[in-house]
């Protein structure tokens, strides 16, 4: 198959061979937005000085940083002094989770999360447990959605210091009932940390968060910038050694040029969001409809309608995820998988496990801004034969 194959699309992915690869792994990292690239180059010159100092270049760096902060705050509906730039989305989550637990230590030591949170949340929960705290994990249904009532009941139990819920799942795209969870949290007097990594810059933020974490490279900003917002009135204390940067919330010298570029990308994405969401969501619908029709014994997982616009995940029976990824890579598609054979831990994705769906033969397609319908069609054209051949190689006949 695909001998002499030359895809036409010139694209797209970070570190990809730009001549031949259709990059469908936006949920891992979104390619740098042109607005971010432009802002980064300017800010590298203009924003390199130490924003904490008092000379002219330092003042310029500080102005750039505070301007970026004000814009980020506006984008998430917060006050500038509630917003900090971190060195990653993971650091934003770690500081958000552990700092709020520390600040609310007198209220209790119970943490509530869903079973399908990003590993940064679950690892922060594990760190909290090692320090003597407890973590309750609320399960999800077959679509990966947490039950708002069950989540609310867990939050209401005695001694809950913090609850965490993602806006959308990073592996299957399913949206979580954040607004309802926020109401339950408010009624119980418990702060809610919302992990918006997969949706900020794409979808409006649900209301009612107390702590917000996000990651710039997921919306087309540069790597190395996360966003942490802590609402006024939410008790928070740094779990790390004291440092004066970022209003004592985040240690270390600020990366001003990257923060400026991150916010430039966010602004651009928000302007484009409605149109691009509709386009990508239609492509995802096309994949959701076509894959089970073209490939026998496939399960498309995640919620069909209550989902992020750009993510679709499916599992092919009798096929190793690694084999599909390798074959798709050979014909010019960059996708990812939650199958155990593709994980460094050799364990299947905790998300697929918690949902109770097939973990082998898993493929996640996540479309970046500008993903083309022609590339999606080409993907749908090559997939059935790839799956058929892999099955044949292990002695399984497709119908």
């Amino acid at each position, binding site marked *: 198959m695909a001998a002499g194959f030359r895809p036409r699309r010139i694209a797209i992915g970070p570190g990809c061979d730009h001549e031949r690869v259709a990059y469908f792994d936006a949920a891992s990292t979104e390619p740098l937005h042109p607005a971010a690239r432009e802002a980064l180059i300017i800010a590298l010159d203009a924003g390199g000085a130490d924003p904490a100092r008092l000379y002219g270049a330092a003042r310029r760096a500080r102005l750039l940083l505070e301007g970026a902060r004000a814009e980020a705050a506006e984008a998430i509906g917060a006050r500038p002094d509630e917003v900090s730039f971190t060195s990653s989305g993971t650091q934003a989550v770690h500081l958000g989770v552990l700092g709020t637990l520390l600040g609310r230590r007198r209220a209790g030591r119970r943490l509530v999360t869903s079973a399908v*949170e990003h590993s940064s949340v679950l690892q922060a929960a594990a760190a909290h447990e090692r320090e003597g705290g407890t973590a309750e994990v609320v399960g999800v249904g077959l679509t990966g959605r947490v039950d708002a009532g069950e989540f609310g009941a867990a939050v209401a139990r005695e001694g809950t210091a913090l609850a965490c819920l993602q806006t959308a799942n990073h592996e299957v795209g399913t949206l979580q009932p954040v607004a309802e969870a926020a109401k339950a949290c408010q009624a119980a007097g418990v702060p809610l940390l919302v992990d918006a990594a997969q949706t900020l810059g794409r979808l409006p933020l649900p209301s009612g968060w107390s702590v917000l974490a996000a990651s710039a490279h997921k919306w087309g900003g540069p790597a190395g910038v996360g966003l942490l917002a802590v609402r006024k009135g939410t008790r928070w204390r740094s779990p790390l050694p004291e440092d004066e940067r970022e209003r004592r919330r985040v240690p270390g010298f600020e990366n001003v040029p990257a923060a400026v570029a991150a916010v430039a990308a966010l602004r651009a994405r928000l302007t484009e969001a409605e149109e691009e969401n509709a386009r990508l969501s239609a492509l995802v619908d096309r994949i959701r409809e076509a894959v089970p029709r073209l490939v026998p014994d496939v399960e498309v997982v995640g919620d069909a309608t209550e989902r992020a616009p750009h993510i679709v995940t499916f599992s092919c029976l009798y096929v190793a995820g690694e084999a599909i990824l390798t074959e798709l890579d050979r014909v010019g598609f960059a996708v990812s998988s939650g*199958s*155990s054979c593709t994980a460094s831990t050799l364990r299947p994705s905790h998300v697929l*496990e918690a949902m109770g*769906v*097939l973990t082998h*033969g898993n493929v996640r397609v996540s479309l970046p801004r500008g993903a083309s319908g022609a590339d999606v069609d080409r993907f749908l054209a090559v997939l059935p034969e790839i799956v058929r051949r892999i099955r044949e190689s292990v002695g399984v006949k497709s119908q």
Partner: protein
Amino acid sequence: MMAGRQKPAADEAPQPQAALTIDALGRKCPIPIIMLAEQINYVPLNATVAVLADDPAAFTDVPAWCRLKSHHHVGTYELPRGGWAIHVRRNY
């Protein structure tokens, strides 16, 4: 162990009799599932196949296969030396 990695517990009850036992210990997914799909046709209707597997993926994937293929996942029983006996009843 990472929070959220907790799985539904395997059944405590002793493992019931099965008409056929498939030894997939040491085999990685999807091999245990391929063996099950092939060999379930060797037992009569309503008989039970026990899949012995120790790949963590099999714990989730055998019940998921049953759901997709409309067979019945009877139960999952821990084996004394690690892994599980996952029982499946042939429905058609």
